[in-house]
């Protein structure tokens, strides 16, 4: 599914973010990616949807070689990998419905399918009744749910969540966590970079800890392992 071998990443400004990283993630896994800020978590995640390219090493996603992949093929990859950010990244002038539909429109999905699919995913994140709201009228948790709905709208095989609960209060964070678990239950691989110790320690999953650009710990049903 996701296969990384000897991955190095040095940015043009000389900062080395990844320092020889190997890992293997199977389809359907739920993986927490933990570690101090600036340890390479974000770079690790960006590599998976080809926002960044490795300086050295190989990355395969479903047998697609990301290191040698042509620019033109990137959109195809992104349709298989959904992404959720800490800051939601919703379009402020569009309604909830339009925000989700936008993701389907731009990949030229058939209009007849868009409506049903949007309502389906909004149902999945329990926001069907707020389809006509604009993002500003929603709470933080609701906005994050919209961004999750958008990320899963084109049925990606992998969902990447970069600190999805970073801007949310504990209760709302749990809400998001439950939705991610539900999505995981349908067979979608989930990679979640997080600083949320409580969630990691309560809902036990595989934990990959990254420090100084290397994986220092990889355990099934692991702990968060850092003091706050």
């Amino acid at each position, binding site marked *: 599914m996701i296969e990384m071998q000897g991955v190095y990443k040095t940015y043009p400004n000389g900062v080395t973010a990844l320092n020889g990283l190997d890992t293997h993630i199977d389809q359907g896994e739920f993986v927490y990616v933990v570690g101090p800020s600036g340890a390479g978590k974000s770079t690790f995640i960006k590599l998976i*949807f080809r*926002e960044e390219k490795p300086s050295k090493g190989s990355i395969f996603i479903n047998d697609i070689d990301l290191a040698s992949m042509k620019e*033109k093929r990137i*959109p*195809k*990859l*992104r*349709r298989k990998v*959904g*992404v959720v950010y800490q800051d939601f*990244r919703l*379009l402020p002038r569009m309604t909830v419905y339009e925000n989700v539909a*936008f*993701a389907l*429109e*731009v*990949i*030229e999905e*058939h*209009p007849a399918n868009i409506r049903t699919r949007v309502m389906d995913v909004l149902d999945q994140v329990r926001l069907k009744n707020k389809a006509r709201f604009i993002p500003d009228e929603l709470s933080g948790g609701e906005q994050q749910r919209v961004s999750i709905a*958008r*990320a899963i*709208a*084109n049925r990606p095989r992998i969902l990447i969540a970069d600190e999805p609960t970073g801007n949310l209060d504990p209760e709302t964070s749990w809400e998001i966590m439950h939705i991610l678990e539900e999505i995981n239950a349908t067979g979608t691989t989930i990679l979640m970079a997080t600083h949320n110790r409580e969630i990691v320690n309560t809902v036990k999953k595989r934990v990959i800890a990254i420090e100084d650009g290397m994986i220092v710990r990889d355990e099934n049903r692991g702990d968060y392992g850092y003091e706050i």
Partner: protein
Amino acid sequence: MKFRTTGRHVKEGSKSVFRNGWMTVSAIGATTTTLLLVGVFLAVMLNLNEFASSIEEDIEVRVFIENTANEQQVDQLGEKMESIDNVASVEYSSKEEELEGLVDSLGDQGQAFELFEQTNPLNDVYIIDPTRPTAADSIASEVNNLNHVYEVDYGEEIVQRIFTFNDYARTIGLALIIGLVFTAIFLISNTVRITILARKKEIGIMKLVGATNSFIRWPFFIEGMLLGLLGSVIPIAALAGGYYYLYYYLRDSINFDFVQLLPFNPFIWQLSALILAIGVFIGIWGSVMSVRKFLKV
């Protein structure tokens, strides 16, 4: 591009034209100014070109034969000239024919020359038609070396002057047109860049969910095209109006005898099509150029 998304691109592209208000006005203004100037240059240049080539076509080398040459020598001279490179045809014209031609060309005033019919002071002439106008010079110098040639004339001074002037006009005009076109492309690309900055987030999300670059580019392509189209409306109208006036009214009041303007129809249609094409080209290029760097990553 899938056909059903064409509508979306056109809608997005035209929405952008309206949404960007003053930026659109400035981009269209820049295109209008450019195209107006380009159009005037083009009209002048194309007419000059036509004028020059009509003169070029009329070029002939006139070889005046010495009056002392006998018939046989004259015939030999004619044969020799026919074998010179780039000579298309050689025609003989006797001094009587020459005088007749002179009298005819001068109209009423020419009657004064009829007195000379008894003692014709003119020479017999060979008229050489060169295969190409620029060969006149070399033909003339070769003929000059032949026997029994009194003088060779092909209006070299005027011809050279027209050639040089035309060359300068062409070069300067072309340089100006290219310069103006690039200025307009730059202005349009700046305008579109600002509109893109406003839509950076949108483009980021489009890329995130897997929109192809061409899908993202299409609305900007259309926006650029519209800016170019709108920018060419005024120049086309002004040029058509101006040329119409020049061609149908001014021509009568000024003596345009030897300068033949290209006929209004079809010239103005060709010019308009050209202006439109340049406008659309400027718009599309300017716009697409500025999207390019936002499509990385």
